[in-house]
């Protein structure tokens, strides 16, 4: 696969608003470049404006629209909190596109997303043009608000779980996966979410003999494969999450555990 060249782009903020109860924000940026070429699962390195934050922050491409990209992020630390102050019309510099996306090759895909991990699956769902189902979970109904809206009409079926049962099925997302798998003949699972959830899903996929791809996160500095901040051990040897991932075949990264 030849990837588009990495570029440094001054994007313009078109929309920036809080969409989730738990400090989740949506950032819509015009990057004046064809964003449709980006693969689902790729990410950007975003420079937090105003100079106090030194390193860029990696954020997945949640969706694209012509020359615009949508990022969905949670304000959890210094950088993302500062990011919330960005206003419409502001310029934000991004390094994009980074990494390899999901391999779309399959007949009946099941997407599994947990928390913020639901975001990058939006573009993936769209690329599947309605043929994918999604199993997605959050802590509670309030947190489920934006995912429900975002996944209206882009998937065949949406199965919702909440930890407290305030919406959809009660319990952790992975718990309900066996039931979901029993109903349809999925031939690939694409999962993004907390590591513990991805491991459970990968394990179940293995038991069911279904292909599974996971999107990993590691602290990053360069995003280009140069600094070796993000190295992981895989069955293929050491790999860099930023360059060789962030999407990996689950059995290559969750092994021996």
């Amino acid at each position, binding site marked *: 696969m030849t990837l588009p060249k990495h570029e440094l782009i001054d994007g313009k903020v078109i929309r920036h608003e809080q969409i989730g109860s738990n400090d989740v924000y949506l950032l819509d940026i015009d990057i004046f470049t064809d964003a449709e070429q980006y693969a689902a699962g790729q990410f950007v390195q975003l*420079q937090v404006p105003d100079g106090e934050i*030194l390193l860029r922050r990696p954020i997945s491409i949640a969706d694209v629209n012509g020359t615009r990209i949508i990022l969905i992020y949670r304000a959890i630390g210094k950088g993302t909190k500062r990011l919330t102050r960005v206003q419409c019309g502001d310029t934000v510099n991004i*390094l994009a596109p980074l990494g390899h996306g999901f391999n779309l090759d399959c007949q009946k895909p099941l997407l599994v997303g947990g928390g913020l991990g639901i975001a990058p699956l939006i573009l993936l769902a769209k690329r599947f043009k309605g043929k994918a189902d999604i199993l997605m979970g959050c802590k509670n109904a309030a947190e489920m608000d934006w995912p429900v809206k975002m996944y209206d009409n882009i998937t065949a079926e949406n199965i919702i779980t909440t930890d407290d049962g305030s919406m959809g099925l009660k319990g952790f997302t992975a718990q309900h996966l066996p039931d979901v798998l029993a109903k349809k003949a999925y031939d690939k699972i694409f999962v993004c979410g907390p590591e513990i959830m991805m491991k459970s899903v990968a394990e179940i996929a293995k038991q069911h003999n279904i292909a599974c791809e996971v999107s990993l996160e590691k602290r990053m*500095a*360069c995003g280009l494969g*140069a*600094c*070796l*901040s993000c*190295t992981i051990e895989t069955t293929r040897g050491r790999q860099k999450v930023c360059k060789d991932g962030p999407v990996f075949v689950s059995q290559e990264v969750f092994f021996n555990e």
Partner: protein
Amino acid sequence: MSNISLKTEIAGIKMNSPIMTASGTFGFGEEFADFVDFNKLGASVVKGTTLKPRSGNKGVRITETPAGMLNCIGLENPGVEAFLQDILPRIKKYNCPVIVNISGNTVEEYGELAKMLDVPDVAAVELNVSCPNVKEGGIAFGVEPDSMSRVIESAKKNTNKPVIIKLSPNVTDIVMMAKAAEKAGADVISLINTLMGMAIDVNTWKPVLGNITGGLSGPAVKPVALRMVWQVRQAVKLPIIGMGGIMNATDAIEFMLAGADAVAVGTANFVQPDIINKIYDDLEKYLKEKNLTNIKQIVGKLQA
């Protein structure tokens, strides 16, 4: 700006500019090919290389600090053989001098590495005696003049290439270390490597980094680096490669005024992957504004 020249030479290495990269921050150079004009880069100092492949440290390897970052990569690298076989043939096409940063566990390993790297496509070796992340040996060589001198001698004996010694800032007397390096036969002095630091997560009560401590780099360390370059410049005659927090041409000029013959850009590559080009262009502009024609005209010109 045809009448303005950034060209320079260090220990016989001809460079298109005094701008180099700092080891470990520029990969093998190829990772930045989409951004950097290699005609503007004086030399590419590649990732720290060891005799055997190393997998580096476990756990979190970087964290941001005020105006800086801590890293404990732990010298992950494919080993010198893989470098020579797989990587060097691939990166020589950039037509930019390649300097290999090497780390050994013993004095002899430095010699062995230097010998193996005495090949046409390598311009020089840089001895990393100060990486604070490697438990076996690394730190000791860099903070004690005698063992550092033995490392330099071992490398010198085994190569015809220039030998660059990269000094650790974690010492009481940087001038003493520089003088010892000069006496031991080093051809060039690089400074500074990272300052040893630490970060703690107040929620988990655990160190942030997998290796507990790590090396501090970035703008935060610039005042310390600049002071060391200035002190060393007054004590030794060897060419100096200055580094530590260089983010722009102004920073580079500060180092050159303090006495650096060339500068290396590290952490800034992560922040702005095309920063080398920008520094090059801004150095040209600066010379023009100051009615100078040659970058060497500013080296060591601090009026102190």
